């Protein structure tokens, strides 16, 4: 099976998933992102790497935050950015996903940033581009269903590397709704690829996928056990629709058992960092005292996210 995100030379031509990417590419992206951090400090926050290129933000699912960070990243690379809210336009008229892509290719798109509710949608687009011979058009997955959110995974790795330097001595816990989380899947693949020796998943059985052990993850149902001696804690957002139903009885009971409070955080290492992909539900998965506390690195994550997305876009469009 050919990995559709690598070209014949083994270089990244699309970013679809972290799974299957060699550690050298992950490191290349993180290093490139580090070099872009300085751009954001300048008066003129621009480099000309994507000058004359058109980046289309194709958001088939709403997300103001992710779309904005991609837009800022593309603009800092001097690209022309076009935002399309597909929910409200073409597909409502019955146009298929691939029809939309064909039309945008005819408008000389160079890079698609794709967010879609169906797992695998960016793969379908990448395969289609290859089938119609448009190897000059690139795809970056901005979140597909429950499958992957690779730029979030990479910015999480950037954050961990920034604060902890060495991946090979860390104990990392991911807490919450892992079953429905593309962020968790991308983080797990990135952490194991980069050599983190112990990745833990903490949550009730209803929010954990089966066979997590096959991904090299240790499963815990008790926060007090799972957080013990961790260096990094990644909290996940609990979607509203999961709170009261067959998966969980209530947000209150969830918070009592799986919410991150200062007391529970004290079980981790004293210098542990707390991450969250946002947007946060204060009082549901995380206590405000933790979210606003000294160990939280949630806002730096957002800043790093722009540099990481600049790195990804400049690398795929350059290959």
């Amino acid at each position, binding site marked *: *099976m050919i*990995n*559709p995100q690598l070209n014949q030379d083994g270089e990244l031509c699309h970013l*679809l998933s972290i*799974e299957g990417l060699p550690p050298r590419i992950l490191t290349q992206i993180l290093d490139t992102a580090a070099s872009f951090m300085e751009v954001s400090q300048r008066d003129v926050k621009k480099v000309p790497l994507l000058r004359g290129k058109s980046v289309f933000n194709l958001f088939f699912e709403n997300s103001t935050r992710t779309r904005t960070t991609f837009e800022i990243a593309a603009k800092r690379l001097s690209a022309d950015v076009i935002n399309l809210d597909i929910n409200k336009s073409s597909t409502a008229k019955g146009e*298929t*996903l*691939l029809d939309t892509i064909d039309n945008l290719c005819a408008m000389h798109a160079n890079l698609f940033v794709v967010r*879609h509710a*169906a*797992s*695998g*949608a960016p*793969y*379908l687009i990448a*395969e*289609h581009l290859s089938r119609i011979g448009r190897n000059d058009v690139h795809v970056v997955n901005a979140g*597909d*269903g*429950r*499958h*992957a959110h690779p730029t979030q995974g990479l910015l999480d790795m950037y954050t961990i590397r920034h604060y902890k330097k060495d991946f090979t001595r860390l104990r990392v816990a991911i807490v919450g709704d892992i079953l429905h989380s*593309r962020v968790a*899947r991308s983080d797990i693949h990135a952490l194991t690829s980069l050599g983190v020796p112990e990745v833990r998943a903490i949550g009730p059985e209803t929010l954990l*996928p*089966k*066979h*997590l052990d*096959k*991904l090299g993850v240790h499963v815990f149902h008790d926060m007090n056990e799972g957080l013990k001696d961790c260096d990094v804690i990644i909290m996940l957002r609990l979607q509203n629709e999961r709170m009261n139903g067959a998966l969980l009885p209530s947000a209150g009971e969830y918070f009592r058992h799986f919410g991150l409070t200062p007391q529970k955080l004290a079980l981790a290492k004293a210098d542990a960092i707390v991450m969250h992909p946002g947007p946060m539900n204060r009082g549901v998965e995380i206590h405000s005292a933790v979210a606003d506390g000294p160990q939280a690195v949630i806002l730096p994550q957002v800043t790093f996210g722009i540099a990481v997305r600049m790195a990804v876009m400049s690398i795929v469009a350059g290959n």
Partner: protein
Amino acid sequence: MNLEIKNGRVIDPQHHTDRVASLFISGGRIAAQGLAPAGFVADRVIDVSGAVVCPGLIDLGARLNSIEAELAAAVAGGVTSVVVPPDADPPLDEPELADRLVHRGAEIGKARVLPLGALTLGLKGERLAELAGLKKAGCVAFSQATQPVVDTEALLRAMEYAASFGFAVWLQPQDYWLSRNGIAHEGEVANRLGLAGIPVAAETIAIATILQLARDTGCRVHLTRLSAAAGVALVAEAKAEGLPVTCDVSVHHLLLTENDIGFFNPHARFAPPLRSQRDRQALSDAAANGLAAICSDHTPLGADDKLLPFGEAKPGATGLETLLPLTLKWAAAANLDLPQALARITTAPAAILGLPLAGLAPGAVADICIFDPAAEWQVNADNLRSRGKNSPWLGHMLTGKIRATLVDGRVVFAERDS
């Protein structure tokens, strides 16, 4: 018309014969094997040296969305009888619809059309369809296709009613609640790809319910398209207990697993889903030891139905034209000889149907498949006669090519000279 098919390797799985011989056909039936009957004068002699001559294949599940093209595909695949599930549009729930389908099939004059009547009106699992009327119109048994009967009392009543007429009920065991949101086997691959899972329990719970009702009602049950090792084990136990139960598997499930989804390949989306390697092995063992018959589960779809993200793509594959070569491929991997392999797609389905359609003894209906067991061909959109070009085997080389197909002693398909 008298026909002699000579020099073929005649394999009759029903009578365990396998020898090079001539087959003499007269009046649509087998007149003799080996020596010509007294006074037989052939109007036509077909020399099939190097080819296998066997009973026509019987496919226990084939959808005929565009009936002419699909029946042409059937005979091009050596299939002489197709069992058609009732999930057409509209569902086959009225005698008149069944009558029309049977007549249309006869008019086209290719493969035999054996419809399954809908067990319930609109396949909704609520009100009974007119089973006796459907039977009279030509339905061979009753089914819900892929639709479950959610209401267990409705299922109990349907099986009681069918049992009082001696009708068989064909059910695809899939618990509605555990399968309604799923798109792939709940296993490693679905977890990695972020696809909602269908647990094995969706199949075993449904089988356990159906078997308990079969025990209580005495209804003859055929379970279609098993997908899991645990499902096979339940059927084996029920058979050992003496329940009147049979089952089948799709040939795709004998050869493919969840791993074939690869990077979201929509052609690997099936209902029930492709499961683990362990499940595939158990299905293969069940087919090898005769517990399960093999079918194509032919589901021709339009190109747009698969050009979608995995979870939005429709499940199923076109299959009539690949049933034989895929069965041969499976048999080779399972160390079965040719007569054993052919039994799974001829005598086994005939026994499930209770129809005398799979023999080559004198007097038998001359439904015959003639194929070259060594010829290779590539599956591609251009050489499939089915309207559906949806197949996980596109681009693959398969071994076993149909030379000719006969129904009622008439040549309904002959390979073009090339």
